[in-house]
């Protein structure tokens, strides 16, 4: 173990049934540094963190912690805490109805603070020393999310932690709150705490971190000093594409022209309650376009705004040139828009209902309350799409929840195709499904477009989007920052635009 490191992981392996989540991953955290752990979805970040915090138990490998002569074994979150590893999760896991002081000292396994007065004084001293502007006696629920997050950090710090893990702490904070959090993080760094910082915001990484470790598909890509890794490089490492061999991917995807009549859908100044900067968007008949950007960049929020899935807070929409109002999914459906959501389990399937009922649901709602689709007709529709999309199910009456992920996705796709939409939004239709199905879905997208359907296609895999889309809208930090068409549709251009920042530096 190096002299200045507080934590070292060597050759960590972890697999779950059917998935190799971590393979031979090394990780080193030095004393007094902020270390970003980066990677796209499924890269293994959260598995690594869970191994560290004892939620999962590693299959192989060694974990070294400063002050211990042998590698340590972490079997439970309590053990991790005893070893000085504290975690603050994105979702705050404190008790909102207790006071700040109580939250800091609760369930610490000691009875030192039976005296409320001492506890409050001690808590206040701790908060003051960390520069957290809050009263120790205040009820936690009455504090802002940022303060709650900082209280969680204070609690972690007071437990004499040497390793502090912050798992996406900034995702629900606004700019000024993020600044406060960063101030606290720097202060802790000064005190010698090693901080592992997980985030999807590139700007924040470059603002506060010292080093970066990148994971991809469960393996270690590398460890870098922040100064030696420009943004574009970071993005390319996360996505797994070297900059050089990217130029030639472009195939015969449909060409885009901005002429050709009124757009099927046009939105101006759209914004929603989810904190998206107002954006303009249009799509023409037979066009396939897509939103791209890193996870959390706001691409899903954009399409949710278009479909009215989130609370729409502004913007003017017209379809085929006629102004329409779309503030809820029902209105969007009436105007011929369909939306396949990103989170299949939460937003897509109706778990206990049969494949058949899941397929007819949207059409049924569109037809109305007093026009139920007859059982025979429903079976006919279901069988039609089971054949068309090659859905693997025992029968039309099988509950959708018992199907595999890819087949569930096809059922949801069938549900929307059955409504014969003018404009189809597919948010990550290929996530978590096998390669064959992915290709099927991409082919289907192009086929539907050639039949005149307008499609917005979102995927974490840039290849897929470059193959299918004729226009890419690039999102960064919840802003629409660029639009790429024609010759600009290359991996390099996409990454440059996603990374941004570089250009400003040159200017």
């Amino acid at each position, binding site marked *: 173990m190096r002299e200045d490191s507080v934590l070292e992981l060597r050759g960590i392996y972890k697999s779950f049934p059917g998935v190799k989540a971590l393979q031979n991953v090394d990780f080193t955290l030095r004393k007094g540094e902020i270390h970003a752990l980066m990677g796209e979805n499924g890269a293994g970040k959260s598995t690594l963190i869970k191994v560290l915090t004892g939620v999962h138990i590693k299959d192989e490998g060694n974990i070294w912690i400063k002050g211990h002569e042998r590698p340590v074994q972490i079997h439970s979150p309590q053990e991790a805490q005893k070893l000085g590893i504290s975690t603050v999760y994105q979702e705050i896991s404190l008790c909102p109805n207790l006071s700040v002081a109580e939250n800091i000292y609760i369930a610490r396994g000691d009875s030192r603070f039976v005296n409320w007065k001492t506890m409050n004084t001690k808590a206040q001293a701790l908060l003051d020393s960390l520069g957290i502007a809050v009263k120790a006696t205040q009820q936690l629920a009455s504090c802002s999310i940022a303060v709650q997050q900082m209280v969680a950090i204070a609690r972690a710090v007071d437990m004499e932690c040497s390793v502090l893990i912050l798992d996406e702490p900034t995702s629900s904070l606004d700019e000024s709150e993020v600044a406060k959090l960063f101030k606290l993080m720097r202060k802790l760094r000064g005190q010698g705490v090693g901080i592992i910082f997980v985030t999807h915001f590139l700007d924040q990484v470059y603002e506060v971190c010292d080093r970066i470790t990148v994971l991809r598909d469960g393996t270690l890509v590398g460890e870098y000093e922040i100064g030696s890794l420009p943004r574009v490089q970071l993005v390319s490492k996360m996505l797994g594409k070297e900059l050089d061999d990217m130029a030639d991917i472009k195939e015969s995807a449909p060409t885009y022209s901005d002429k050709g009549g009124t757009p099927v859908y046009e939105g101006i100044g759209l914004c929603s309650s989810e904190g998206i900067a107002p954006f303009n968007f249009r799509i023409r008949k037979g066009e396939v376009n897509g939103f791209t950007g890193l996870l959390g960049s706001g691409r899903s929020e954009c399409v949710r705004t278009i479909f009215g899935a989130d609370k729409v807070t502004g913007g003017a929409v017209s379809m085929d040139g006629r102004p329409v109002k779309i503030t809820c999914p029902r209105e969007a459906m009436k105007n011929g828009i369909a939306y396949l959501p990103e989170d299949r389990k*939460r937003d*897509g399937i*109706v778990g206990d209902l049969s494949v058949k009922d899941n397929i007819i649901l949207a059409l049924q709602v569109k037809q*109305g*309350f*007093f*026009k139920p689709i007859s059982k025979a007709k429903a079976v006919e529709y279901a069988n039609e799409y089971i054949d068309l999309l090659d859905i693997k199910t025992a029968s039309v009456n099988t509950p959708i929840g018992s199907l595999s992920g890819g087949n569930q996705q096809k059922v949801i796709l069938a549900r929307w195709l059955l409504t014969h939409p003018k404009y189809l939004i597919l948010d990550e239709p290929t996530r978590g499904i096998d390669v064959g199905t992915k290709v099927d879905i991409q082919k289907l997208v192009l086929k539907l477009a050639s039949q005149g359907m307008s499609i917005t296609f979102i995927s974490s895999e840039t290849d897929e989007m470059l193959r299918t889309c004729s226009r890419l809208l690039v999102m960064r930090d919840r802003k629409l920052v660029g639009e790429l068409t024609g010759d600009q549709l290359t991996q390099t251009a996409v990454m440059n635009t996603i990374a941004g920042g570089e250009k400003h530096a040159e200017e």
Partner: protein
Amino acid sequence: MQKNKLGQIWEVISRNQIIIPFAALLLLALFNLIADPSFFRITLNENANGDPVLSGNLISIIDSGSELAILAIGMTLVTAASGGQDISVGAAIAISGSVLLRVLCGSDSRSETLQAPIIVAFLIACVVSMLFGAFNGALVAYFKIQPMVATLILFTAGRSVAAWINNNELPIVKDPSFSYFGNYIPGIPVPAPFLIAIACFVITWLVLKFTTLGLYVQSVGINEKTSRLNGLNPEFIKLLTYVLLGLCVAVAALIKVSRISTINYSVVAKDIEMDAILAVALGGNALSGGKFNMAASVLGAYVIQFLTTTLYKFEVNATALPAYKAVVVILLVVLSAPTVREKLTALGKKLRRNDLPAEKT
């Protein structure tokens, strides 16, 4: 080979939800058959007015179980959509019944003639009852209050409201035609409440067949977020189920009040809410919402009545009755719990799998 078939049959049986109340019914019937076959005797008599009426234990079951069965319809919908139960139905029956009497008797609680046609009184009671249902539903759907807490309000206040509607008097309806709904219609030997219940089932069946209510309610109960993204309005659908339960309450109140042509605010339909919830559970429906089987709930209601009547028949002391009932109910509810059903299904599968090697040899 035979065992294999047995396994298959077992699997089908254990998977079907209605089998639970059905088996319970058979069990109770069997018990009575062995203990005292005369339990099933039905006779045709004449009542005090000289009209032919059927009587016997079975008749008394389908008669007294009617209110419960009607309430079970509404309670099933409420449970499926909101994943919770309405515990105010007993109090709501008191209100609805009180409104009925108030409209029928006007200001004079001992009036000799009806002050309004029965249909008008009934419709007004329906509207009032549905409004109270809407109140419950709004608390649950729009204010996101847990159903049991939301309906606790009306549960607590309902009977006082009912008494207040009639200035704390107990009006008596003297017109004999009003008593038909809770007793017998002249010339028809089958108890009228059962006929009303049948009419309710038929209407419910038609509604479920010719509207999309069933799909919407289940969809909302299983996944609210998905339902919204598919153009449904989950809040409204939840509200609707509470309003429909309100309608069921009004019908049950009509029968209850008609039985004795008057009302006792503190006793009428007492504890019926718990039996109605039990009927839903006995039907094998998950009390956490989602998929439902209406017929199973209704059958569940009659099972409860069958049980009560059986216990009466064996002259169980009225004060001890709930305890006996509880023991049987525990058994039935455990058997009908989805987890137990799953285990039973798994057992069936195992039976079949064990048979496969035997077949080869």
